[in-house]
């Protein structure tokens, strides 16, 4: 009895232990395999010859599909290239190094993550680079007290590099354009949000109203013209003729028309 109970407990403990080992054991084999990405593995030639290009040895550089990071992110919110940010973005704005702890930070470009921020007027039109305003490494968070980007000194340290005499008020201009019609803008920048929708409705309303008006008008006139041309053959005259008559009538009550204007021609 005792021995059987002991055996049963031993088997149970061994099974649990094995399960624990299976769960906790590091996945040794995949980690040691030479891959550029979790999706695309090395081709046979590289694997057999041991000859790799420079870029292939660097981790996670080759991409499974060619495309902009923006597009990839649209289809899948979790891509291998997204930084696994241990710190939330909001909290990052208070750090001295706002990019602290982001994997492979040195090999990345600003616009890989900050897609929308990179695509804005100062970079496209003014031909500026991110660092000309945001500075060199480490890039401090905007709310970090000693950051040159901190709103208390942004106008003096950043804006006035080009805009001589920039004031605090001037620096409240939002350089990175936001989505004017987005729900988040309604909370953070309501005047811009409502202006956007006012102008949007004005444009759509005006074009819809007068577009429809013009379309029906041109169509109706063409329709009458075509019927006019086809009139002589069929006997539909009485149907059409009464229509134009009522308008000229009131004018014809006035003195005869043509003789008057002809006088000055002599």
């Amino acid at each position, binding site marked *: 009895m005792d021995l059987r109970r002991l055996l049963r407990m031993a088997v149970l403990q061994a099974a649990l232990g094995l399960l624990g080992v299976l769960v906790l054991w590091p996945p040794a084999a995949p980690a040691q395999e030479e891959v550029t990405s979790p999706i695309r593995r090395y081709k046979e030639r590289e694997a057999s010859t041991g000859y790799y290009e420079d870029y292939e040895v660097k981790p996670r550089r080759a991409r499974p599909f060619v495309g902009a990071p923006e597009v990839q992110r649209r289809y899948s919110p979790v891509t291998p290239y997204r930084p696994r940010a241990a710190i939330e973005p909001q909290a990052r704005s208070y750090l001295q190094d706002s990019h602290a702890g982001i994997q492979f930070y040195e090999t990345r470009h600003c616009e890989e993550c900050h897609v929308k921020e990179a695509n804005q007027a100062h970079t496209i039109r003014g031909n500026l680079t991110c660092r000309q305003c945001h500075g060199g490494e480490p890039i401090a968070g905007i709310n970090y007290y000693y950051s040159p980007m901190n709103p208390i000194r942004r106008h003096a340290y950043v804006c006035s590099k080009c805009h001589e005499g920039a004031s605090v008020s001037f620096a409240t201009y939002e350089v990175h354009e*936001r989505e004017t019609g987005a729900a988040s803008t309604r909370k953070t920048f309501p005047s811009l949000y409502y*202006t956007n929708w006012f102008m949007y409705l004005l444009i759509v309303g005006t*074009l819809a109203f007068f577009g429809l008006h013009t379309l029906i008008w041109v169509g109706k006139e063409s329709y009458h013209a075509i019927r006019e041309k086809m009139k002589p053959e069929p006997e539909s005259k009485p149907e059409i003729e009464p229509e*134009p008559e009522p*308008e000229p009538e009131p*004018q014809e009550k006035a003195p005869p028309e043509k003789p008057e*204007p002809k006088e000055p021609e002599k």
Partner: protein
Amino acid sequence: MNGPVRIVRFNVLDRLFHVFIMVTFLIQAVTGMGRLLFSTNWGKTVVNLFGGYDGATTVHKTVGILMIIGFVIHIIYVLAKVEWKSWRKSLFDADSLVPRPADAVHFGQKVRWFFGLGPPPAFDRWTYWEKFDYWAVFWGLPLLGITGLMLMYPLAVSRIVPGWVLNILVLLHRAEALLAMLYIFIIHFTIGHLRRGMFPMNECMFAGSVELEKEREEKPLWIARLREEGKLEEAVVPGPPPWYRVVYFVFGYTALTIGLYLLVTIIVYRNYIKWH
């Protein structure tokens, strides 16, 4: 003259204002669109015609100031035209562009005519869509002019209003400009060129005169009023000389081509247009 009898509709100054706004508006549209689409190759090419981004900006600002001056001159001209002794009559009679209750009636009649429920309205001198064209420019020009002028001097403006107001001004300026372009290139061009009886071009804004017989159909009240007041004889003018017609046909069709090209550009590059 053996041609049709023509009566005067626009004087020289009216036509000059129209030509002025055509030229300046198209320059503003081209330089503005080039800069708006500067992220695309199209925008870069267009902007390079004006000597690069800064050059296009300078042209845009200069022509903008010219437009504001032109608008001020126009207001002085309009105010001088009003007979202030009988201002109520002068402002609200049929020769004035100020909207009247009759315009709403005409619009109702037009809609009824659209659906075959009645005869087309008999217009006086100005139809309601002509009045809308005029007032659309009258509201658009100050809006674009004031926002543009404020954006020209952001440092000075941000001393008076908070800097984020400039964000709203950018949005207003671009949206109003887009509305103006779309309205002119779609609706104004259709009414001026594509309507039956107008087809190659409605010449009255360039020739200054209209054919009496054609106007008798669309604007019978105007002709009747002229006759009652005994002004019809004074209004008769000779038609435009052939060389002048050639000039304004070339000019008009150049403007039409530029406008339609810009319209196609707006449609093709719609995803690259940033409101703000």
